[in-house]
């Protein structure tokens, strides 16, 4: 394939602009970036609009934009589970996240594991949850780079050098600006993505003769294909169980991820979170439209690529349909789209490391400034690790890690969500439930050779492995806690009811402006 210089020029131009914004972000809402709550959470000051852009850019990742249409292109209707998944997630967010936000704000938590540590008075359980988060996040970061790689390869340039350049820049501005950088870049990224998707969803069906004609072609192709290879546009009965369990399981897992919690904790009030539970579905609608590109790729006769299989469906579709300058804008949107979640994820993983590993086990008495430095360095290490991962591990293996990541992450549900509401949870049972869920999930993944996240457990056909894992986890937690309660044993906690209530005067007032959250770090003079 020859190099597409015009596409490349647009991507480079927009890339430079984004890097400038990333470094400039350090001056936005200026504060002491040597404090972890400022570097890692932007001082918990983000209002409704910035939170909308940040969480939208953070959760609906570049990889999602490549993988969802790829899945629809490769297997048809099943890939649309992204829709129910990203609809039912918001009632859950509306209910649970404000409560978690409040306790985090009251007690100065930066990570979910900070909460677990106090809730169960156990730094070991907090470590387990932190490790779950870090392990689930690493391949997710790698997949963002994979999204860039698909796009770069489609432009006909060797991806390795470009990837390294993009990542050095990303690592540098994250180090300097912290969470402020992805928040500002998200504004650019999302504007581009919205532009591209809205143009494409009108223009491509127009060129393919309308949606009627697209689905007619998809159905014709499905009718003549052998059953195992058919890509139906309506879900077949054999996949009902798998469809609803993967939608529910993915919804339960998404807001447990460290990068989701970072986005939630950085918002300025419970009201901001509740409003966003109503505004963020705009992105779900967009994701649904992007999923339809998979059907359009089938109708347009796009062939799977040698290097990336079904995942290059959307890139190939755009290249066939659009003039090259617009393809350049679209590819830039995907590439920039990868930088936002990669930055937030590396910050979130780094915060877990500095707070719940380093502070707890290595240097308990470090200053605020040291803590922020450890996080900054850890964010670099995480990104270098992800880059090495993507350059040396075959892409298919990384996809498997991601599948496994979701199955593992869901096991943090009892510790991060159930614990908000149920007081008499037994800490030992929590850890056993976690181990049982991870164990069962990993066992089932091995049975499926990590190639799919569905497994037949002998109940209701093929279901989502993460769903079975959390069911077992919850059963152990509830049974164990019940037994402990009957035996009259109470687990320790450092939290009281009051810790879940709004207690800062500015959290209660409806008009007052809020003073900065952070205290001057010792030795920095503020």
């Amino acid at each position: 394939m020859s190099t597409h210089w015009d596409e490349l020029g647009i991507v480079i131009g927009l890339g430079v602009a984004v890097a400038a914004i990333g470094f400039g972000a350090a001056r936005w809402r200026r504060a002491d970036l040597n404090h972890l709550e400022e570097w890692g959470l932007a001082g918990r000051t983000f209002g409704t609009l910035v939170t909308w852009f940040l969480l939208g850019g953070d959760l609906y990742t570049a990889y999602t934009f490549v993988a969802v249409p790829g899945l629809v292109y490769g297997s048809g209707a099943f890939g649309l589970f992204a829709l129910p998944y990203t609809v039912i997630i918001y009632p859950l967010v509306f209910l649970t996240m404000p409560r978690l936000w409040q306790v985090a704000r009251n007690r100065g938590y930066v990570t979910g594991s900070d909460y677990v540590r106090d809730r169960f008075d156990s730094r070991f359980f907090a470590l387990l949850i932190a490790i779950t988060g870090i392990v689930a996040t690493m391949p997710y970061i790698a997949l963002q780079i994979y999204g860039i790689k698909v796009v770069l390869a489609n432009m006909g340039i060797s991806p390795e050098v470009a990837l390294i350049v993009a990542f050095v820049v990303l690592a540098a501005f994250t180090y300097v600006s912290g969470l402020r950088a992805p928040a500002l870049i998200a504004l650019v990224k999302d504007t581009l993505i919205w532009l591209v998707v809205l143009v494409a969803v009108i223009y491509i069906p127009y060129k393919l003769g309308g949606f009627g004609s697209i689905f007619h072609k998809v159905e014709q192709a499905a009718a003549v294909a052998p059953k195992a290879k058919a890509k139906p546009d309506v879900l077949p009965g054999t996949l009902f169980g798998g469809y609803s369990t993967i939608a529910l399981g993915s919804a339960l897992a998404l807001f447990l991820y460290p990068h989701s919690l970072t986005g939630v904790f950085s918002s300025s009030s419970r009201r901001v979170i509740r409003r966003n539970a109503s505004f963020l579905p705009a992105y779900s609608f967009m994701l649904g439209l992007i999923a339809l590109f998979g059907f359009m790729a089938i109708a347009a006769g796009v062939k799977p690529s040698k290097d990336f299989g079904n995942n290059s469906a959307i890139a190939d579709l755009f290249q066939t349909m659009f003039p090259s300058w617009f393809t350049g804008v679209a590819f830039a949107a995907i590439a920039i789209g990868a930088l936002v979640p990669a930055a937030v994820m590396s910050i979130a993983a780094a915060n877990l490391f500095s707070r719940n590993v380093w502070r707890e086990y290595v240097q308990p008495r470090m200053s605020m400034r040291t803590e922020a430095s450890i996080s900054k360095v850890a964010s670099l290490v995480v990104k270098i690790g992800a880059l090495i991962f993507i350059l040396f591990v075959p892409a298919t293996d990384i996809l498997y890690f991601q599948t496994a990541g979701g199955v593992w992450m869901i096991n943090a549900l009892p510790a991060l969500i159930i614990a908000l509401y149920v007081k008499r949870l037994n800490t030992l049972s929590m850890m056993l439930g976690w181990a049982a869920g991870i164990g069962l999930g990993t066992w089932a993944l091995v049975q499926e050779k990590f190639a799919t996240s569905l497994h037949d457990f002998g109940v209701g056909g093929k279901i989502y492995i993460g769903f079975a894992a959390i069911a077992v986890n919850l059963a152990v937690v509830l049974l164990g806690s019940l037994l402990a309660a009957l035996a009259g044993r109470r687990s320790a906690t450092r939290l009281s009811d009051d810790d879940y209530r709004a207690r800062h005067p500015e959290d209660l007032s409806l008009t007052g402006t809020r003073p900065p959250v952070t205290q001057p770090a010792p030795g920095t003079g503020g």
Partner: protein
Amino acid sequence: MSTPPSSRPARGRWALWLLILPFIGLLVPNWYARAEPRLSGIPFFIWYQFAWVVGGVLVTGFVYFVRRDPEDGE
């Protein structure tokens, strides 16, 4: 601390039950996995789920307005 939080209780807690609607509407594909009726050529299975994105917004939006919790802040 200024106002004790307990002095202004949350209103409209009943509305939270509405949040269950999207789950009922979407988690049983048996109800909607069919091609007809189509909407300008798009199978029911697909446009029904898109409609629920709007439905979900209406539900959370309604609950947001009905339920007032003074602790939610600005």
